């Protein structure tokens, strides 16, 4: 038997008719279901991205060098405002004047890097 004829015979099958209206109903409900799934996925992803972005921003803010906060009162005088500068000078004067042990006070001022300023501004401690 001719092989082409054979495959045509084999592939022939009775095509039962399909109810068009039911098919259309199923088609549109499936289409809507897929669209809503896609929308849900998109919303989920957007929310995820927002959370990640917010977390990153928060983290980057918190991750600022903590030494800045800790050493705020030990900042060099050049970067202080006038009011703070005056206060620090007064404090240094007070410490020197009221000190029982001048060397201990000097050692303390040296520890907070105050020596240069004292020398520069007051011509040194005599």
């Amino acid at each position, binding site marked *: 038997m001719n*092989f*082409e004829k054979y*495959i*045509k015979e*084999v*592939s*022939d*099958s009775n*095509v*039962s*008719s*399909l109810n*068009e209206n039911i*098919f*259309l109903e*199923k*088609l549109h409900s*499936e*289409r809507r279901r*897929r669209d809503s799934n896609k929308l849900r996925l998109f919303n989920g992803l957007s929310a995820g991205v927002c959370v990640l972005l917010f977390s990153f921003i928060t983290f980057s803010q918190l991750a600022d060098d903590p030494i800045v906060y800790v050493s705020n009162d030990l900042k060099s005088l050049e970067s202080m405002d006038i009011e703070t500068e005056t206060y620090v000078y007064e404090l240094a004067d007070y410490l020197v004047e009221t000190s029982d042990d001048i060397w201990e006070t000097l050692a303390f001022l040296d520890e907070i890097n105050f020596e240069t300023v004292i020398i520069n501004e007051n011509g040194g401690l005599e």
Partner: protein
Amino acid sequence: MKSDKELIKEFQGGNEEAFNQLVKRHLPDTYGFFIKFTSDTVEAEDLAQDVFIKMYKALKKFRFESEFKTYLFRANINMSNSYLRRNKWRNLLHLDQAPEPAYLDTSQEDEWRRKELWDAISKLPKKQRMVVSMRIAKEMPYKEIALAMGINVNSAKVSYHHAIKTLKDLINK
């Protein structure tokens, strides 16, 4: 009666009913095509549904560069290729569950032979598979096959010839 082009334009203009009319017009061909592939009404209906869902999205941007019928047929072929690929894996995974042909009655034997044929078709190279599918499932002339695949008529004939030779070897093995 409105042409496919008119219906598509109406659909693009927001008329959903035009799409429904288009589906009703092309459903018998599409469903019949998938029935021949799958021999299973449920699977054929699912495949037809998938194709028309894709069409729903694609038609909104359809630019009428080809006939809708050709466009739909290409979509059917692509869908059947995916089905054959899926089926190939399914057959590989369920080989031990395939019934022995010797124990089958006549109707089951027909079913078995059909399955054997489509399994063999799934093993063909893509171009041959597409040509032979169109010839067998739709009995399309070479000219239309060539148009749908974007190849020339002689190339379609050669692919069909090679496909038949390979199928003969596979089935008579």
